[in-house]
């Protein structure tokens, strides 16, 4: 039996050596196609769309460029992974969410897209100006917008027709009225259908600051000469107005409390438990798929806090960042891939398959796009809303944005559970975010 023991030991050694050898990425020699890695956070329907786009690119560039795309989970998880890799460049091109922008710009790991725009003499105006504005600082376009979205109001059109509602609400005053008419109560007093419901999503908070024409953080919303050093939403009163809306819909039972993120809100909307909800344009396709024949889906602009607010939405979603690997062949290949992904036809396909609107102006001219709009006019609303906003309402840039968003959501949750009131919530948010921001700035700059 000593032999068995020895065999086991040898086997173990062999196995571990095999892994030691096999798990390192073999360095690509000069022969063969240039291999680049693309990290993204698109799952489900959107992930499949990316997979097919990547496959088409690889087919078109067979033998020259080969792109491997890896799904990294949610935006948060992917972002954490990238940060944790500590500048070891695990990939060539990475899709990062909007709120990761400041961090990426500061990280030193990024090769600004502007470099290749200059090199290739590429016309930046091919991109929708309101979208490009978000990712541009001081005339430099840092990342290539890809999956941009804005928030929308989704409503149950069938329910609207039944209740005789003809005007789509555009501000919360109108939403309160409409919700009242749509509310259905069971004989035993429990609510069968709420008129309105929204997930506890920090993104909405940020959007509503822009809708009120106010800044989220100081120093020109983080886009000024210096990076942001404190939040502004507690100083300019915008934050309180937003939290008061949340307070009202929850306290008065206009909306049920739906969990952080948007999945529960979507499920509730699809099941017919809520008649109106707020969601990203990116959910349009999957909502259409899941709702099927249950009811007709209506889409409207993201509502104002107050009827007379002057402001606009900012883009959300993500953009594609080139990493500063220093390997020119791979960087060139990455640029080719970028150009492909935002070409008019691909953006039209992307729009059709997901609901994200095309970032390329020319996409609207393609047949693909036109046919889709004809069949699903809902897709047009997002684009109109995008055209109706302005660059000055572009969202904030904040190094610790992900943490800030989580903090906001945490306080809304506390608000929903009555452990804090509206004013306390805003104060808490401001206090916690400022503290984290101070420490970050101290250590990292």
């Amino acid at each position: 039996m000593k032999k068995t023991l020895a065999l086991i030991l040898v086997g173990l050694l062999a196995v571990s050596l095999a892994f030691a050898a096999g798990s390192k990425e073999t360095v690509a020699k000069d022969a063969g196609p240039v291999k680049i890695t693309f990290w993204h956070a698109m799952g489900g329907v959107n992930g499949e769309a990316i997979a097919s786009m990547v496959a088409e690119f690889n087919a078109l560039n067979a033998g020259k460029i080969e792109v491997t795309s890896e799904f990294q989970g949610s935006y948060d998880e992917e972002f954490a992974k990238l940060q944790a890799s500590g500048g070891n460049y695990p990939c060539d091109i990475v899709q990062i969410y909007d709120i990761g922008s400041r961090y990426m710009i500061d990280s030193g790991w990024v090769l600004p897209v502007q470099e290749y725009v200059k090199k290739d003499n590429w016309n930046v105006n091919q991109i929708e100006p309101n979208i490009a504005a978000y990712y541009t600082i001081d005339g430099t376009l840092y990342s290539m917008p890809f999956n941009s979205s804005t928030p929308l109001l989704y409503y149950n059109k069938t329910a609207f027709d039944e209740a005789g509602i003809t005007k789509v609400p555009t501000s919360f005053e109108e939403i309160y009225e409409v919700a009242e008419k749509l509310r259905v109560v069971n004989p035993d007093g429990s609510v069968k259908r709420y008129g309105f419901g929204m997930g506890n999503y920090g993104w909405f908070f940020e959007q509503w600051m822009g809708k009120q024409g106010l800044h989220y953080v100081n120093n020109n919303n983080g886009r000024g000469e210096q990076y942001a050093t404190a939040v502004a939403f507690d100083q300019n009163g915008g934050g309180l107005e937003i939290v008061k809306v949340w307070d009202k819909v929850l306290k008065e039972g206009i909306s049920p409390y739906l969990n952080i993120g948007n999945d529960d809100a979507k499920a509730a909307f699809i099941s017919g438990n809520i008649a109106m909800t707020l969601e990203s344009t990116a959910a349009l396709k999957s909502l259409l798929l899941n709702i099927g024949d249950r009811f007709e889906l209506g889409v409207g602009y993201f509502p104002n806090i107050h009827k007379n607010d002057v402001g606009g939405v900012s883009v959300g979603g993500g953009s594609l960042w080139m990493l500063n690997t220093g390997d020119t062949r791979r960087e060139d290949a990455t640029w080719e891939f970028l150009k492909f992904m935002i070409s008019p036809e691909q953006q039209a396909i992307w729009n059709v398959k997901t609901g994200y609107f095309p970032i390329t102006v020319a996409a609207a001219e393609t047949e693909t796009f036109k046919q889709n709009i004809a069949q699903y006019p809902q897709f047009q609303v997002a684009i109109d809303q995008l055209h109706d906003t302005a660059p000055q309402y572009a969202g904030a840039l904040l190094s610790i944005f992900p943490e800030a968003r989580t903090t906001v959501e945490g306080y809304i949750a506390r608000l929903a559970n009555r452990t804090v009131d509206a004013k306390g919530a805003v104060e808490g948010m401001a206090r916690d975010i400022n503290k984290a921001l101070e420490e970050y700035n101290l250590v990292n700059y």
Partner: protein
Amino acid sequence: MAKNFDTRAVRPAIKGHHFWLEPYLFLLPALLVFGMFLYYPFFRTIFLSMFLTNKTGHAKIFVAFTDKDNYLTLFQSKSFWASVAVTFRFVFAVALGGLLIGLTSSLLTEKKYRGSNFTAAVYAMPIAIASAAASMTFKMVLHPTNGLLNNLLGTQINFTGDVRYALASVIGLTIWLTSGINFIFISAGLRNVPAELYDSAAVDGAGYWRRVWSVTIPSISPTLFFQIIINIIGAFQSFSQIKLLTEGGPGDATNVMVWSIYMDAFRNFRFGAAAARSVILFLIVLVITIIQFRFEKRGVNY
């Protein structure tokens, strides 16, 4: 097969010079792994906890004993104390709950009957279910609009989003998960209760419950003691349930210490602060274990 020589002459040679290393060599593989992946990181964590780290985990500013000390910041944070309280409630409930369920299921299958093998297999089954898988299952069971529990109750309670139910939900799930190992170990303990004790109890005319209380439980007290320690250590490490169901919320309602360590380290990129949290966690576990062993001397009969 005995050899024909004086073994006393041979043995000193075996125990002598060359072989004194032998016991240590046997220990070497295990100690190597422990050294690299347990002892070293443990001390490194203590080291890190004394610094403010930058976003890639490098210790940047030495802050121990200053006003920016990581530990000081934690002690001044309401959220931290909330986290400690939640952790204690969670661990206590899970340890005790798991034990009770294990005891119940063990007692129920103590005597053999038709189908008792099947029942025993069912009770032990949760050890084969990964905590992540069970968490996803319970995510569906507890779903606010389409979940099993709400369907059965006819309600639309947001279990994981309501401070009243969030912690209970996570506790329930964790007890479900640990019921298997509790069942296995406690059943083993039950099997070793000497029959004579039961016989003398029967002679004394003791009823079922009386017997359980006065004979069974004291006899398996070493098992129960061991099991509670296992439950407690396991409860302190529960992570996937929190991540997949509540993400520490709502507010701080399910913000157990493991979760806040993860958030600080891997979402907020404050490795130094996270390290401080883990050191505090370790000290807590250590103290609890010491207290338990003291208690063992008094409460457990061998």
